[in-house]
């Protein structure tokens, strides 16, 4: 399982209100939510993001509200992975539950800047900055989590697991 794309780079404490402002939460339509992703801190994001791109941020990414609309908007915008120094705990759980892979890696955050092309191998946890040639080691996902992400989230994973049992 892999991801590859160019990087949008953000700082500390990117909160769920800027990832998807509450004024757009009167819908749970994924495409509508994605249209406003990151709007309040980076109005260029949604115009520039391409399928597969990667968000890299610093501490406490996704802090604030429990709105699952935040990882949904990010995933639906085409982003294939979020890498940060740390994540807020509800956002962390929500992202994996909807099948958006996210990784904590201090060194990668030190060594990646906006516009770099980065690839991630989720089975080994290796993050490669193809622009600089540097490699970083993050904690690889255990096989169940890779299966959960590949299934598209917790619900389809539980159903698949149920069928196998």
């Amino acid at each position, binding site marked *: 399982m892999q991801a590859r794309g160019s990087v949008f780079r953000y700082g500390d404490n990117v909160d769920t*209100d800027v990832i998807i402002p509450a004024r757009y939460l*009167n819908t749970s339509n994924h495409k509508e939510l994605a249209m406003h992703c990151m709007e309040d801190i980076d109005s260029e994001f949604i115009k520039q993001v391409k399928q597969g791109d990667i968000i890299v941020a610093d501490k406490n990414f996704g802090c604030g509200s429990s709105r699952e609309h935040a990882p949904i908007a990010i995933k639906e915008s085409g982003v294939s992975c979020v890498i940060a120094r740390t994540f807020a705990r509800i956002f962390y759980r929500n992202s994996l539950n909807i099948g958006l892979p996210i990784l904590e890696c201090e060194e990668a955050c030190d060594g990646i800047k906006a516009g770099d092309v980065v690839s991630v191998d989720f089975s080994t946890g290796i993050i490669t900055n193809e622009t600089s040639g540097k490699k970083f080691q993050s904690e690889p996902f255990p096989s169940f989590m890779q299966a959960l992400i590949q299934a598209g989230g917790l619900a389809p994973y539980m159903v698949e697991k149920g069928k196998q049992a």
Partner: protein
Amino acid sequence: MGMTMTQKILAHHAKLDSVRVGQLIMADLDMVLGNDITAPVAINEFPKFGKKTVFDKDKVALVPDHFSPNKDIKAAEQCKALRTFASEHSITNYFDVGQMGIEHALLPEKGLVGAGDLVIGADSHTCTYGALGAFSTGVGSTDMACGMASGQAWFKVPSAIRFNLTGSLNTHVSGKDLILHIIGMIGVDGALYQSMEFRGPGVASLSIDDRFTVANMAIEAGAKNGIFPVDDIALAYLDEHCPRKPVIYEADEDAEYERVIDIDLSKVKSTVSFPHLPSNTRTIDEVGEIKIDQVVIGSCTNGRISDLREAAAILKGHKVAPWARCLIFPATQKIWKQAMNEGLFDIFVDSGCAVSTPTCGPCLGGHMGILAEGERAVSTTNRNFVGRMGHVKSEVYLASPAVAAASAIKGYLADPAKLQEER
């Protein structure tokens, strides 16, 4: 090794004798909560879990409180989705407009959470119920759907920070000032993935409403939960509201804490969080001259009766500054009626405040008090992120009901103690 209060509740609900930090457990749930923003997503996910109905119709609570009374057609559709789902699954605890209150004030008031319970809610401020000695935490919609289907959720057992409280709070200083003081000290990720356990002789001096406010904002320090011991004050509240027998857990003497922070409550000053993070705090004597346009008093953090009494005591006989607006949001119908019967509404209306029906509306920039470009609000709510209450170039200053009321009169961020001296 001993366990913290949180660890004991988790162990019991996972049917284990003990748990250790970092352990992954599957635990039984006493209540699963959702609102009109998060539950529609969960309702869409629910059928995917392959269950025809919810695990227990008495242990699911649906509260359309965010964009209701319906603010627009889309919001109306979301509230309708809750209503339909509640009807199809015969959900006992569905509260439509008229019974609806802000969820985290409503559930304790209705006796739906008790001491020792394990509660998840698809709302980050679900951690509020720690005031009653419950483990409660915010989750997302998929976890809510899974919880409604199975009655279970997985957790990673958290480590804890112990806050050892001594002394008592000064006049005009409240639970809000205490929690803002703490968040200012440890930061918005200061308790990331951890429990915040409040202990020590100072706990006895905090009212139950103060404790709700403190536990409510544990999430703003990144915490998984905030929790108080079940003492006589908590028991008195539970006795009045919750028909179930409280299950009391106490932290072991040798429980391990990653950090112990001593706080002398008598040293805590009125505290304000400046834009755009709850941790960006200043004490009231250091705020300088901040002219404001709007004051909001209410929310799951500070919309309870003692908050309204505090605000009314300060507003009584005064007018809101001519350039400012002051909006009051009692958190539930019961609190609304109580405030009315106590004459608080006369004071508010005579001062030039507007009193609303319960809603989360303005707190998250939903409706009923949106800020224009460049406007500033003093608010008793819980978040002041960029664009939180409206325009991306508006500002929110988080404060206690006393500071908010004093600021409404002055039209500037103001110290309620100083206002009192001037009288």
